[in-house]
């Protein structure tokens, strides 16, 4: 698996979910209570992102922050991925005194995020928890697609050949909804939580449970389409290209 792409998807699609996590998960919220700092994740010649923690909230940004409190550097994407997997340490360019956040608080956020994202508590979870898991997964896939069209050379031809247009996806009857589209050459957008008027294609997931199974990889999209649990209308060329991107994101995210 391409290490840079893996790092890019984490930084651009997974890390932003921490914003939602601390709003929903008490353990995660407790971990950042009283914290106020900005952490920069900076891969040499690669992607960068930062998290700002303040007033019990997390804000994510792509690129470099003007004045981070803790500036973590990684000589390669592999080093970053190893740190995320708990197997390595970053270089510290700035903020040695704030390192405690990285060693004590950040792992809690990561652990709780994975708990929800992977549905590890699904057997005893509430309907709200299940919905939250689907919402996180939905957001991750949307963000992941934006990452792969910009950072994955293998997806370049798909991005180029994708017709301009928007796919609107929603979970029935009133679950999460979002969209992904190509606005113009090399310009892609993803939205979450908003209905789309006159989309070029529509993907309807029959229930929250189907959405959860798809996100967890318990069922394949092609099977859900065949059984009618997922219904697609509209521009098939657009849908087919987006399916390739989704498949790529899923494989990279594991």
């Amino acid at each position, binding site marked *: 698996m391409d290490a840079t792409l893996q790092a890019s998807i984490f930084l651009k699609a997974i890390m932003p979910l921490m914003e939602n996590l601390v709003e929903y998960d008490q353990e995660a919220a407790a971990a950042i209570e009283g914290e106020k700092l900005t952490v920069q994740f900076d891969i040499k010649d690669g992607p960068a992102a930062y998290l700002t923690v303040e007033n019990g909230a997390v804000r994510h940004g792509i690129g470099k922050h003007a004045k981070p409190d803790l500036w973590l550097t990684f000589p390669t994407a592999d080093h970053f991925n190893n740190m995320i997997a708990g197997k390595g340490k970053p270089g510290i360019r700035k903020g040695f005194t704030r390192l405690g956040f990285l060693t004590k608080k950040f792992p809690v956020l990561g652990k709780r995020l994975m708990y929800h994202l992977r549905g590890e508590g699904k057997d005893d979870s509430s309907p709200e928890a299940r919905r939250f898991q689907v919402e996180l997964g939905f957001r991750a896939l949307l963000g992941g697609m934006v990452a792969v069209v910009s950072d994955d*050379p*293998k*997806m370049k*031809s*798909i991005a180029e*050949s994708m017709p301009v*247009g928007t796919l609107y996806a929603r979970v029935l009857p009133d679950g999460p909804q979002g969209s992904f589209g190509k606005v113009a050459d090399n310009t892609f957008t993803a939205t979450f939580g908003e209905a789309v008027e006159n989309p*070029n*294609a529509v993907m309807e997931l029959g229930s929250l449970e189907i959405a959860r199974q798809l996100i967890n990889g318990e069922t*394949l999209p*092609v*099977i859900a*389409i*065949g*059984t*009618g649990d997922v*219904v*697609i*209308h*509209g*521009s*098939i*060329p657009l849908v087919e290209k987006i399916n*390739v991107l989704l*498949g790529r994101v899923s494989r990279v995210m594991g």
Partner: protein
Amino acid sequence: MNSYQKSEELFLRATKVIPEGIYGTRKPGFVLPKASPYFAARGAGGHYWDVDGNEFIDFMCGYGPNVLGHAHPEVDAAVRERVSQGFSFNQPTEEMVELAELMTRLVPIADWAVFAKNGSDVTTWAIRVAREHTERSKILATKGTYHGSHAWCAAYPAGVTAEDKANIVYFNWNDLEQFERLVEKHRGDVAGVIMTPYYHPACAPSIMPAEGFWKGVREICDREGMLIILDDIRVGFRVHIQGSYAMFGIEPDLICHAKAMANGYPIAAAMGTKEVLGAAEAVFISGTYFYSPMEMVAALTTLRILEETDAIPEIARMGTRLKEGLESLGKSHGYNVTVSGPAAIPYLSFDDHPDLYHMQTFCREAIARGVFFHPHHNWYICAAHTDEDIDRALEAADAAFKVVREELGG
């Protein structure tokens, strides 16, 4: 209302042992999930039945190969006779020579033929022959055209390396200026161009060659020492007994045939002029089943029937009736619909609704009425279709247009 219960049960069984359950162009998502069959059972003439017993007038003809219709008695009898004598030998049989003789007579521009199983086999081999003949690397191809599933022409990137496609250069259909620019850019390294006789992408209308396009391509190729490879797999003998080059006035150096040459039996052919014979002899081609006389007998019989009967003009006549009927019905329901492509290979489109919602609803309703129209692919007419089939298809289309109007409006 059709039931597809057995189809769906089979599909679920398939998902446990076959990647995606059904792969490639036959996957449910490419047609209309829950509104069309996933598994077929039998066919006769221009009709087929799915595993649930639903009957359809077959306007896909197995994605093209059934040019005479399902279970054609003469073709199948010839195959049965061959099978009774064995068909898997250590050497080729006489039928291979007979078929090459017949095809070079039918396709006078070509002097030789080799045989394989699928379109991808021969398109891939043909570009190698072009490279060998010219001692150059690059092949020009039109963007969005399907030439098979091998790595150099795969539509999707999974399992494909950049190197696999490094020597394929794409240009837009009918854009002779772009073609010329690319030839100039890669001057001295372009072996040839591979194209279908007209542009027939999935999910979009077919586009005929512009006036002078093929002539211009030939002139540039002659000037630059490049070859023309005609991918005639989808069109071929369905439109003309010499293949489509005769219909479109193309002068190819290499031609790839498959679908409409053996009425569904798996065989493909690459043909070429004597000028490229040396390269054809140099480029290795083989496959355990490439020599099987079973399919060659089917091809011999099919091509003889196409030559000796009025099958091809009848296919065109039926296609023309369908085209004119659909366009007229569309208009009567307030839609601008166009049936593009040759009459034998029609593609219906709602001109004001390129996103396919209307097309999908239309085909769903036609299929529910026993007429198998594909929402995303061109259709095929075969010689077994009757005037009654066309009448029934138009009757179903009339009802389908009405539902489209009710559900989606203008």
